């Protein structure tokens, strides 16, 4: 069952620029003909460079921006026509902003949320107890938000976004600025919530470790177009980014020559060869071992960063 459906959604903005007395109007398409569906309980990583159209998409999904074309259904309703109604069923977290009451103890923000979303006292208490336990908020409830560290505040914000049992949660860079331990903890928590409550999570991030840890599915958007939609493994192979074979020879030799791989770097007895993802490494290794004094070797997969950099560099839309 899909909870989010986008069909040919576009969003254009009019940008007015002034040169002297002349005013020129230009139309910019932040999102262009975007279609996708997200099923209940999916965790989708939504990534793209700055200005790719990520936040425009999220704004349209939450109903605070109407699309210029196409149709959107979120939890069965048209978001912009049912903004308030939908707001009760979704949660939103911005890594760079807080919705907590800055000068008051954390628990005050939670108390307001119970009333704001009309959550029953019993359910609120139950959820709060769960999140306090999982996010280790116990000692923080009586601390004014302004005295919390970034990581603590973020945990508070995430709990705040989930207290009303939202069906869908949008997380905009939830781990930005956090240390490794805080990041790991937050990812663990989100995975847990997704598993226990079937909460659909849409995660926009520049931290690809977030994606690796959480997302079964990745969507890459660039210049308003969807350029990839699939698994993380699929993303790696889709770009046929070359793999690297690092061989350590017994002595420094001139670049070796074998079929199916080329030397890109020689560093003393160590040589770096690249070969396509589609080629198997085994025959290459056999070839080298037969011809050269091979001592050791390692194979490096393309990093997810390099794969995505390649996508941004060649923004050809991928058809499903």
């Amino acid at each position, binding site marked *: 069952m899909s909870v989010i459906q986008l069909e040919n959604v576009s969003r254009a903005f009019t940008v007015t620029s002034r040169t002297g007395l002349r005013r020129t109007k230009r139309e910019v398409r932040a999102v262009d003909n975007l279609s996708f569906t997200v099923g209940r309980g999916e965790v989708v990583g939504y990534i793209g460079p700055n200005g790719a159209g990520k936040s425009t998409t999220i704004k349209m999904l939450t*109903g*605070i921006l*109407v699309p210029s074309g196409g149709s959107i259904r979120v939890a069965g309703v048209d978001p912009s026509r049912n903004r308030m*109604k939908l*707001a009760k069923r979704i949660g*939103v977290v911005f890594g760079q902003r807080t919705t907590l009451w800055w*000068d*008051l103890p954390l628990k005050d923000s939670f108390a307001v949320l119970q009333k704001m979303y009309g959550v029953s006292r019993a359910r609120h208490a139950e959820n709060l107890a769960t999140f306090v336990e999982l996010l280790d908020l116990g000692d923080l409830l009586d601390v004014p938000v302004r005295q919390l560290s970034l990581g603590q505040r973020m945990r508070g914000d995430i709990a705040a976004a989930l207290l009303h049992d939202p069906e869908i949660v949008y997380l905009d860079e939830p781990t930005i600025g956090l240390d490794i331990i805080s990041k790991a903890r937050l990812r663990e928590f989100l995975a847990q919530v997704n598993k226990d409550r079937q909460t659909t999570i849409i995660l926009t991030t520049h931290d690809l470790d977030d994606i690796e840890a959480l997302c079964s599915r990745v969507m890459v958007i660039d210049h308003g177009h969807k350029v990839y939609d699939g698994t993380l493994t699929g993303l790696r192979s889709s770009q046929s980014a070359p793999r690297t074979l690092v061989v350590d020879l017994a002595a420094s030799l001139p670049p070796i020559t074998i079929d199916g791989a080329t030397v890109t770097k020689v560093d003393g007895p160590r040589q770096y060869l690249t070969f396509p993802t589609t080629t198997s490494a085994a025959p290459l290794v056999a070839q080298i071992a037969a011809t050269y004094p091979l001592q050791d070797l390692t194979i490096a997969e393309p990093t997810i960063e390099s794969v995505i950099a390649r996508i941004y560099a060649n923004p050809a839309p991928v058809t499903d």
Partner: protein
Amino acid sequence: MEVYWAIAVRSFRRFSTYRIATLSGAFTNTVFGFIFCGVYLTLWHTRPGLGGYDVSDALTFVWLQQGLLAPVGIFGATTTVELGERVRTGEIAVDLYRPTHLMLWWLSVDAGRAVFQLLARGGAPLIVGALVFDLNFPSSPMQWLAVAVAVALGILVSFGIRYLVALSGFWITDSRGVESMALVLSLFFSGAILPLVVFPGWIGEVARATPWAATLQVPIDVWLGRNPGGVGSALAFQLVWIVVLGLAGRMATVLATRKVVIQGG
């Protein structure tokens, strides 16, 4: 509706955490109270009965004015200033993610602030003033009630004006200009510099008809029992402005939301 009460309560608590600011504010009001008393004493000795006030009316006016400046938000209030800032930075979009009405949210926040400041900053200067000078106090429970209503309505009128000023940032790139103009108008037409009763002729008529008059001058006149048309018409005058500003605020909210949602901010 419960949520707006919860918000107002948190806003009250929030302002109660600013202890130093509250103390120094009350101290400043008291100091200015003495300065204004000096000026007004000279003025009313030169022109006895000016504007229909006797000397003790004039002195009472000073201490009430000093006590009401912060709660009414004559110089603007932290809450609506923050709203203006959110509009300028675009952070206001976050407020739209909430299942609450924008204007009611900010009204609740402002009400919590006003009640706290009325209790913490309204009383102190008045007590000091009453110890030093011979001041007038309401004589009947009915008059006390009328004062309470007039002060509450004055705060609502003031919120209505400040809300519109804050929202002007949706259409004006630098709404700080509007804010400072609003400050000047508010200072003069509320009676925060001189009671509006002293202005003669048409200037006085105009000044006393503005919404700013409904924020400070009218509640103080209710306290003094000096409303030209009686308490009833004074409260009606405030109510009219609340309705006008409330409708204008509602319309501005709809237009601003539409601007964000359709034009994208």
